């Protein structure tokens, strides 16, 4: 189960399911909603996301590019140690700003 919330002009995507092939369609819909108007500012809250698989990594990279095309960015927040390892091993982490928690991620947009 994933959901999108808004803090100011920042979209926060959070959820407690693994970021895998099965959950991609729902996430795509949420992320597409972030891309509709203006420059997307998205925080992907990974705090309660137990696992990311290759499809999930691909999704992150794809939407990072889509956001960048519109002058926006996706930031990752609070990945679990496992998720952080997955992101690090695949070097996907280098494409993202990773923050300690979603609040500081949201806060980083106002700087």
């Amino acid at each position, binding site marked *: 189960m994933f959901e999108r919330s808004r803090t100011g*002009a920042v979209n926060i995507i959070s959820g407690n399911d693994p970021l895998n092939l099965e959950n991609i369609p729902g996430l795509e819909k949420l992320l597409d909603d972030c891309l509709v108007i203006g420059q997307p500012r998205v925080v992907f809250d990974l705090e309660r996301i137990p696992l990311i698989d290759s499809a999930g990594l691909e999704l992150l990279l794809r939407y990072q590019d889509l956001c960048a095309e519109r002058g926006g960015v996706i930031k990752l927040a609070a990945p679990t140690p496992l998720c952080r390892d997955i992101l690090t091993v695949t070097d996907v982490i280098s494409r993202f700003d990773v923050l300690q928690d979603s609040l500081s991620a949201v806060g980083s947009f106002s700087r």
Partner: protein
Amino acid sequence: MNLRSAPQSFSRRLLGYFLLFGLTSIIALVLGVISFERFLREDCQDEQLLGRIQEVRGLLLADQKQRGGVGAQALVTLLGSEDDVAYAAIVAPDGKFSAHTKRSQVGQPGNHDLLQGSGDSLIERKIRSNDGQTVREYWAPLHAGGNTLGCLQVGVIHAGERSWLCHMGDSLPMACMGPLSVLLIGVIVLWREARTNAVIESQLCAVSASKSPADFRLQPLTSGGPAAEGWNRLVEQAAGRRTASSLEASLNRSLNGMQERRTERLLNALPEGVALTDKDGKISYANRSFSILLQQPSNLDLRGKTMPELFPAGAKLQLENAHLTRPVVFEVQFSQNPTDGVLRVGRNPMAGDEQPAAVQHVWTVSDITQQKLADEMRNQFVFAATHELRTPLANIKAYAETLSMHEITDPEQQKRFLNTINSEATRLARFVEELLNISQLEAGSLALSRQEVDLERLLNEVADKVRPQMLQKHISFDTQLPVKLPKLNVDKDKFTSALVNLLGNAAKYTPDNGHITFKTVIGQRDVQISVEDTGIGISREEMPKLFTKFFRSSDERVRDIPGSGLGLSFTQEVARLHGGKLLVHSELNKGSQFTMIVPA
């Protein structure tokens, strides 16, 4: 250069050749004329001689008639003494010499084959004498009254001079041809000599006629000569320069193309919107971020549009009174609600535009929504904080001063005053704590320090904290706890604050004599703690903004009640940090129910 050491300059050579061939032909002509004249003169001499011969012939005939030919020998000898006459003789009709300059020859047979010639005409013939000299022989028949006396034979020798003259006479046509051929050769030589220059000249003329130097290509010369060689070098150099310059030009073109593409890519990669307007205010360039920021369809070509067309209808472009050359910066909001987007728009005159009337503008647009919201929050915060800090402080000061100022003998009243001071101090302390939490929240450093907590004790502590507030407003407070409560691994202080917040809100927004239920349900995987009140409730419109920091309902009843607008966002954050969430059910004027769910 070795051009300098060239033997002669062209003009000198031309002059030299001109003089050479001119003089040569003149000399040849003069020689020809002289020799012809000489020849003519020789002819004249011959005629004299012939006249002499005729004269002698006449004398001979007269002598024959009068004296029977006694003086013949003497006349022949006389003739033989003439210049150029080698010999003279009279051949008798019998073919023997009847007289001869050489007396020994008299009576000797001579040539008489010409004797049969008739008439008085002189016969000339050339014979070659024994010593190799060409001798011209004149035969003059001697006729006197029908009988032939013989024939006068005169041998004339042209000495060396005379033979050269004869030779010259033979080669007279050649002598005429001389100057002609000299002139012809001169023409050819001069033509060859001048050809190099002519080619160079024609090329130079073509260069001067062509509009730009690049249009004309110089041709190298094939014929030799230092001038041609020099010209070829020049041509080579020019060609080299032209290739270099054309290479440079094409390099520049491709570089410029690259530069343009790079600039284009650079501008499109900018998160800030950049656009250029011409002197009519029409857009001549806009990068990708520009149309995105102005919420225009990405496939729409913005060129030719003006700025006011692009901004939302309500947005006011603060450009009045701004001179065209003055940089302007202003903010544009998409709607009344800054959350919908706030743009900072800058307009700067393009550098290098001299005339103010024709000024082009560079527009920059950046999205400052988040900064704007943060600013607004800070302002709200400062505003709320000053009020919230001052109110209890003012009360404490007023009561303390009143206590010290007047002699209050009634111990009940004294106690009441002191209690008030105490509760106001508590209110102040609570607010300061809230501020601290919020500042952590703001800084994003709200971290949990989890520990095992006895939930029952925690809930009771929370209930005790808010109970006085409820009592003050005569609110009935109902606490429902299950029989057995588990231990939870939570951040005790933050968890407590969150629940106190919820109960405090319930107490604040529930009118006197209301009812509040504090209920805990243990689920299979989670714990649900709910606070239900019979308060003023939350309108449907304001529900989405409920957890926004510093949000305070516009409901007048809420505005009356002091609050920072931070409590709920803090509580939600605490729930989220614990891996749980905060749910709300509320109905305006009936009451609200907040449920905090945390994993067990």
